[in-house]
């Protein structure tokens, strides 16, 4: 997908002036409360008319104020999961789910009702009215409703915010499949770095209506300074790997990456499948000699490329492992104690357990460096 946005819009005292062009398959919108994420999503969906500007999705001009183009919302085939579910109160859950299908030509329907209902765990709610649903249930139905309209572009405004982790964990892989198998371009608003790192191929960071940063997810995730302070613990390097083999004895998967073999908990992907791996900087221990008798299984040899001061007495050490950069965050005390300096040969030590599903994504190969 290519998504070109260049718009200016005012609402009250707030002005949105946003310009970016994303070629990613899933573009994450990131930014603090009130920074204009929902406003931007609304404009892309055609709920608001920008004062000036252009929006082009995959060459299809949705808005061009200069050429007086404004495709009405019902012709955009843009699915929108609203921040506030906005279910139709006069229809049952099933009625809500089926609403969009009616307006989708048979040939363009890709979402299967059973699959979506199953995925979202809303089978027992189908006959209910929205007024009888819990907050999370409502949001799940809203996701289902948008999906079942088989949109050609999916806009999701904090879709998982009100869901528990277990439910999130079930839905995230589905969004990945939409992105990868169905190849539905997605714009995804989230406050969760974990979600963004896992899903996004590109990230747009909004701040007070302006684009503060924008680029491939891997690049943005490495720039800890772009992340909110409290989220920096979640930042780190995103590297690409390939499933090398599965270790059935120990229920693990060995990934081959530029930095060496990495052992992770078992992944459900065939050998050869590309995998994207987020290694949190705080999960990486640095050892000056190859450690022995340690439970950590991944010990990646490398050379210190650079050292930067992070916030709060921490240091960010970039280790070049065979050309692949691995970020580590350690204390200044450790740095001095170990006498680390650029050029020094070290080992990056990472526990297998520190990789969980939230850190590993399949199917995004080739876009990390895009």
């Amino acid at each position: 997908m290519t998504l070109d946005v260049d718009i200016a819009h005012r609402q009250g005292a707030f002005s949105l002036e946003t310009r970016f062009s994303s070629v990613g398959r899933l573009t994450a919108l990131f930014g603090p409360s009130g920074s204009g994420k929902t406003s931007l999503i609304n404009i892309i969906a055609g709920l608001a008319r920008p004062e000036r500007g252009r929006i082009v999705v995959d060459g299809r001009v949705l808005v061009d104020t200069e050429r007086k183009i404004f495709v009405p919302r019902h012709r955009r085939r843009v699915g929108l999961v609203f921040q506030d579910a906005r279910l139709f109160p006069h229809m049952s859950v099933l009625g809500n789910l089926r609403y969009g299908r009616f307006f989708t030509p048979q040939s363009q329907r890709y979402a299967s009702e059973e699959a979506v209902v199953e995925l979202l765990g809303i089978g027992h709610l189908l006959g209910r009215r929205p007024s009888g649903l819990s907050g999370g249930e409502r949001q799940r139905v809203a996701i289902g409703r948008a999906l079942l309209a088989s949109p050609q572009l999916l806009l999701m405004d904090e879709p998982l915010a009100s869901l528990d982790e277990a439910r999130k964990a079930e839905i995230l892989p589905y969004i990945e499949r939409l992105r990868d198998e169905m190849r539905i371009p997605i714009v995804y608003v989230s406050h969760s770095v974990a979600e963004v790192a896992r899903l996004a191929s590109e990230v747009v960071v909004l701040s007070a209506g302006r684009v503060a940063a924008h680029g491939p997810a891997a690049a943005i995730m490495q720039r800890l300074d772009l992340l909110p302070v409290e989220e920096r613990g979640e930042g780190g390097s995103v590297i690409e790997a390939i499933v090398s083999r599965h270790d059935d004895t120990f229920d693990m998967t060995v990934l081959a990456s530029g930095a060496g073999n990495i052992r992770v908990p078992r992944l459900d992907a065939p050998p050869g499948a590309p995998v994207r791996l987020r290694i949190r900087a705080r999960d990486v221990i640095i050892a000056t000699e190859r450690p022995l008798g340690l439970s950590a299984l991944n010990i990646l040899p490398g050379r210190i490329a650079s050292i930067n001061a992070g916030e709060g007495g921490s240091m960010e050490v970039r280790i070049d492992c065979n050309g692949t950069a691995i970020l580590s965050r350690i204390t200044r005390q450790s740095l001095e104690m170990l006498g680390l300096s650029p050029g020094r040969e070290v080992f990056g030590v990472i526990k297998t357990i520190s990789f969980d599903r939230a850190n590993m994504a399949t199917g995004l190969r080739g876009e990390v460096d895009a």
Partner: protein
Amino acid sequence: MSWLTVLTPDEWNAVRLSVKVATVAMLASLPAGIATALLLARGRFWGRELLNGLVHLPLVLPPVVTGYLLLLAFGRQGPAGSFLAEHFGIVFSFRWTGAALACAIMGFPLMVRAIRLSIEAVDRKLEQAAGTLGANSVWVFVTVTLPLILPGIIAGMILSFAKAMGEFGATITFVSNIPGETQTLPSAIYTFTQVPGGDAGALRLTLISITISMTALLLSEAMARRVGQRLGAA
């Protein structure tokens, strides 16, 4: 039923006619009522206030005046009346259709206001949601707006019906009081009040009229309750 035997054939006719006239007036004005309410609630056009004023006129004018204006416009010689008669074969003058027209017009401001209030209470974000799901504005209206304003529509219909059951000023002035053709219950009641000793007859017909209207009212309340439940109101 003992009522049947108490009523003269003309009175019985009046009962049937009133129900017919009220029902037709209510149903026939409904589409226009919805459209007008929609225009007034949503439209931003020149002449909006004019339309609004026009809709309220039958409320403001003494019914006799409304009836007389109808007579002038829709009578045999009236411009609208002769036009409709010539081109569509629709004749209002001194027909029950005329009574229905008068009742529809007298009930119109009530119907429009009820529907308009409901439209103004609709959460437009739901309509937006329908739009993003592929529904064009007509479909949005049919599948979202219309069901949501059903309470207002029901209220508008019962107001129009009840008004029609009570209206006689405009009706009798426009289409007279011809038994079997334009003599509705209220006209018949009126006639009774005009003669010595007519009170008993007036009372009898009034009770019948009340019975019919209350039945309709109860029905409308039951419908509204069902709709309310469907909308998930507490």
